[in-house]
């Protein structure tokens, strides 16, 4: 509005806009506005609607009418009020100052909105995402006479204590530098560089960029994935790992802990930047994220978690069109930081709400619905979104990645509904949350039989190299035991567990240890909330070792109940709360303690089996 200053090419477009004519509103139906007759509006162009200057976007053009979706509540808008052009597609503002902030679906800072309109969000406020008056201690990296090329870093500043912000010459910009501002305090809109392009025209570069949210940002090339996103969550890291640059989905009905798991991942994953998109979710949840993150200390940097986090909150009662945009705004922010060479993780909670926003707008446009009323373009929109994940070589030649973790809220907990099914086609990790597990308060309620990760094979080399050579082998042992338990439980349901063979009873007991002692993880426990890979490996190894040792005893006709009585399995179930995260010798100590317990039982049996059985 007043202070939205835009540099470089955008500026030219804006100047040109002054001659553009306004149009008048013809019809209003919820968030859908129509303009009658033929117009020169562009597809996806941002417009201001009515006297209140509500923000909208052109979504359909024909010779008879133009359709605009409005990002704000349209109550009170009248036919005949003006629609004014901006000449630009819906764009996100990218500049230092984004981190630690919370934005709505179209990138307006909520803190600023609060200052302007109080506790409730009033319509028609247009403010840039970042503070344009704040001074940054910018280090200008170029000097007069340098040749500009896309991907060059022209300025750097410390955005927060943990993130160094790099300003990169955008694609399509080249020329000779004719002016370089001295390093020091600058605002984001001040021109830091002036340059002359090949045609001899002078342009400016400031730290602020704008980028159309629906267009992926350019990269030099995409790289194959090579390392996991370590999350500290055992069931994920060990059984169903996600790669840096990968895409994952968390489907689950309400109350299965999707949001809780998303929060855990946002807190503990080893990404450099977290973009958390609350898309059509609860307001209180976003408040909780804000509160919790500002109080949490990142163990790797020693600073507040908030310093590496951007939050987008378009809660369920905020306008539906902005909800549709929020996912794109989020991924554009993520790509922007990726281009600086960071590993970014984007959490989208929940993509079903986003799909419903598509459906709602599609319904208002009276489009022909496909499955369950969703528009036919749902799969293509979903794939376009998930394809923005990836590990890439950036324009400046660095390695960066965007990993996307999308929560899916299937209606009626039915995984065959269109959003879950279509999502499954475009992601490679599927963490299926399970109602029965959640009812038993087994968190994270990731079902180990229906979940999968297609990255396992590609990442195994990393696990062998970085954690332990037998890591993949142990993982498949764990999976086998769980699968065997699943098969046995069908029998137990019919005849009870007493009639099983000893060997099978042992499998059940070990599987219980895996479930309770390994897969279950307490998000609120100081030690257990996040566990390093080395400890995960140690725990996994100990469980398998114990299982193998117990089998040798079973072979000697020592009943499993004896070992149970000694408390061996209970030790395994509780080790997660007792072993420290940083000192792995404790695992070895526990291992030797358990093996001496086994030896003790064995000795008793060797001497007098009848007596020992009592």
């Amino acid at each position, binding site marked *: 509005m007043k202070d939205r200053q835009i540099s470089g090419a955008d500026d030219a477009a804006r100047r040109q806009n002054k001659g553009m004519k306004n149009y008048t509103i*013809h*019809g*209003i*139906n919820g968030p859908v506005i*129509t303009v009658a007759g033929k117009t020169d509006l562009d597809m996806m162009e941002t417009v201001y609607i009515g006297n209140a200057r509500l923000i909208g976007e052109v979504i359909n053009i024909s010779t008879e009418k133009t359709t605009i979706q409005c990002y704000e*509540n*349209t*109550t*009170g*808008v*009248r*036919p*005949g009020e003006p629609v004014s052009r901006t000449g630009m597609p819906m764009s996100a503002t990218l500049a230092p100052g984004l981190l630690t902030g*919370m934005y709505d679906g179209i990138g307006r800072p*909520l803190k600023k909105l*609060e200052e302007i*309109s*109080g*506790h*409730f969000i*009033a319509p028609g406020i247009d403010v840039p995402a970042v503070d344009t008056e704040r001074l940054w201690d910018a280090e200008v990296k170029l000097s007069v006479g340098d040749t500009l090329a896309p991907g060059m870093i022209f300025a750097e500043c410390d955005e927060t204590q943990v993130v160094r912000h790099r300003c990169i010459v955008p694609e399509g910009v080249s020329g000779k530098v004719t002016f370089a501002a001295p390093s020091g305090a600058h605002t984001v809109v001040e021109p830091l560089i002036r340059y002359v392009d090949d045609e001899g025209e002078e342009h400016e570069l400031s730290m602020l960029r704008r980028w159309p949210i629906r267009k992926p940002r350019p990269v030099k090339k995409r790289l194959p994935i090579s390392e996991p996103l370590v999350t500290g969550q055992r069931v994920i890291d060990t059984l169903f790992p996600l790669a840096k640059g990968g895409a994952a989905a968390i489907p689950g*009905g*309400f*109350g299965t802990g999707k949001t809780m798991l998303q929060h855990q991942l946002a807190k503990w994953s080893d990404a450099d930047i977290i973009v958390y998109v*609350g898309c*059509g979710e*609860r*307001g*209180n949840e*976003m*408040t*909780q994220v804000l509160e919790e993150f500002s109080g949490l200390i990142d163990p790797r940097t020693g600073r507040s978690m908030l310093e590496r986090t951007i939050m987008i909150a378009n*809660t*369920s*009662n*905020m306008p*539906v069109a902005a909800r549709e945009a929020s996912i794109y705004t989020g991924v554009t922010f993520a790509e922007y930081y990726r281009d600086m060479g960071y590993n970014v993780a984007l959490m989208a909670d929940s993509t079903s*709400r986003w799909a*419903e926003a598509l459906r*709602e707008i599609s*319904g208002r446009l*009276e489009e022909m*619905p496909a499955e369950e*009323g969703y528009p036919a373009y749902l799969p293509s929109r979903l794939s376009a979104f998930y394809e923005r994940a990836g590990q890439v070589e950036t324009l400046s030649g660095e390695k960066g990645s965007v990993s996307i973790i999308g929560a899916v*809220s299937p209606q*009626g907990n*039915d995984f065959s509904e269109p959003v879950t099914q279509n999502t499954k086609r475009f992601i490679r990790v599927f963490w299926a949350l399970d109602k*029965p597990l959640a*009812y*038993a*308060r*087994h968190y994270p309620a990731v079902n180990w039989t229906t979940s999968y990760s297609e990255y396992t094979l590609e990442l195994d080399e990393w696990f062998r190299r970085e954690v332990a050579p037998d890591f993949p082998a142990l993982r498949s042992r764990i999976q086998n035991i769980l699968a065997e338990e699943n098969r046995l439980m069908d029998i*137990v*349901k019919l*005849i*009870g567990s007493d009639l099983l063979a000893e060997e099978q009873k042992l499998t059940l007991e070990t599987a219980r240890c895996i479930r309770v002692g390994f897969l279950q993880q307490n998000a*609120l426990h100081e030690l257990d909330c996040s566990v390093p890979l080395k400890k995960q490996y140690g725990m996994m190894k100990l469980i398998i070792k114990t299982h193998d040792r117990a089998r040798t005893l079973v072979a000697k006709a020592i009943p499993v109940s004896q070992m149970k009585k000694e408390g061996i399995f*209970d030790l395994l179930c*509780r080790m997660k*709360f007792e072993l420290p995260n940083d000192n792995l010798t404790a695992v070895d100590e526990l291992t030797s303690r358990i093996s001496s317990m086994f030896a003790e039982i064995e000795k008793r049996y060797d001497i007098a089996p009848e007596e020992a059985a009592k």
Partner: protein
Amino acid sequence: MNIEYIGLKNANGPLIVLDGVRGACYEELVEIAVGENDHRMGRIISLSGETAVIQVFEGTEGISLSNTRTRLTGHPLELPVARDMLGRVFDGAGRPIDGLGDICPEKKIDINGLAINPVSRDYPRDYIRTGISSIDGLCTLIKGQKLPIFSGAGMSHNELAAQIVRQAKMSGNFGIVFAALGVKNDVADYFRRSFEETGVLSRVIMFQNLAGDPIVERILTPRCALTCAEYFAFEYGMDMLVIMTDMTSYAEALREVASAKNEIPGRKGYPGYLYSDFASLYERAGRIKGCEGSVTQLPILTMPNDDVTHPVPDLTGYITEGQIVLDRSLEMKGVYPPVSIQLSLSRLMKDGIGDGSTRADHSTLSNQLYASYAKVQDVRSLASVIGEEDLSPTDKLYFEFGRRFESEFLTQDRFENRSIDATLDLGWKLLSILPRDELERVSDEMYEKYCRGEE
């Protein structure tokens, strides 16, 4: 603006279409005079050039193409609010129907409200003691929460809601907003009587759209109720409890209007925006930084055919912060309140309980009770195959635990108000039935301290 538009273009269900309208705004309130003495209200729900589609709150009965005179009011539907609304009864559109005359408005507020800015919200963490063990112990109600009751036809949800109102320990400065959405007169009357008996009637504001009242008005009723609650909470700093029953009727009203508008239906014929519409109601619960008051919602909905995957309970569950689900099989066993522990959940509970608000052992106890009761279900299904006699000794203990949990912990009298200590101690007493090594979630220290067994 005193232009009157005479006649209509067409009428369909609750909708009328008017031509040649100038200067109307979207969602504007209109007054429709039908014949001589019949005055109705309506709202513009779609505008296209000079054609306006209007939803008539009182229905279109008796309207012809020529007997109407329509006048624009120039503003959207607003609810006049004032402090003396306490103790009064209004119809679904906010007009007094208790015969005590109009209120003297201090302010008029657009009933659609505005979204609370997420950064202005204060995270709810003060628990409300309801004196009901299953709620206090296992899905604690928090001030500023929205916690619906999922019920079915014929179950005791009304009694439960009334008991919560009776026993809820809120601050001294509290108020109750009761919105009757398409419920029978008897139900509304039951609540009124129960408020009266509790002596809180002077703090209750009732909005009634009973089963026989116009459908379109039902869409306004919860909005009026919430606008009023927000006003008292954030202007007067009161703790407001909003009870809305029955949300299923509300959703059906929405469906009826949507189909009259020829909208493309979504699941089970409900409009595609049912989620957003619900959210625009439920999200109006909460607390705001720097304000004393709070809006706590207790919506009640009946699940058609007890189906929790029906769109209404399903979408509600995705928006609200948990749910209290009533179970017909428990009701049959004579358990009151028949709260199905497995399906019920309070998402805000974890931050509202523990040392300083309830007791340090609360979280551990509730986790263990949940886990053990889940095991009871497995044991029961096993027993139904092999018979109770052949269960292993541990499984028999689970069987016993399940039985006593239902008859002692869940069951309580309609007037029994248990303290939080009584609830938690009872929980520990029941857990002591089970062997120590089955209580995986309880640390030794806690076991020693709390799990003393029966005296």
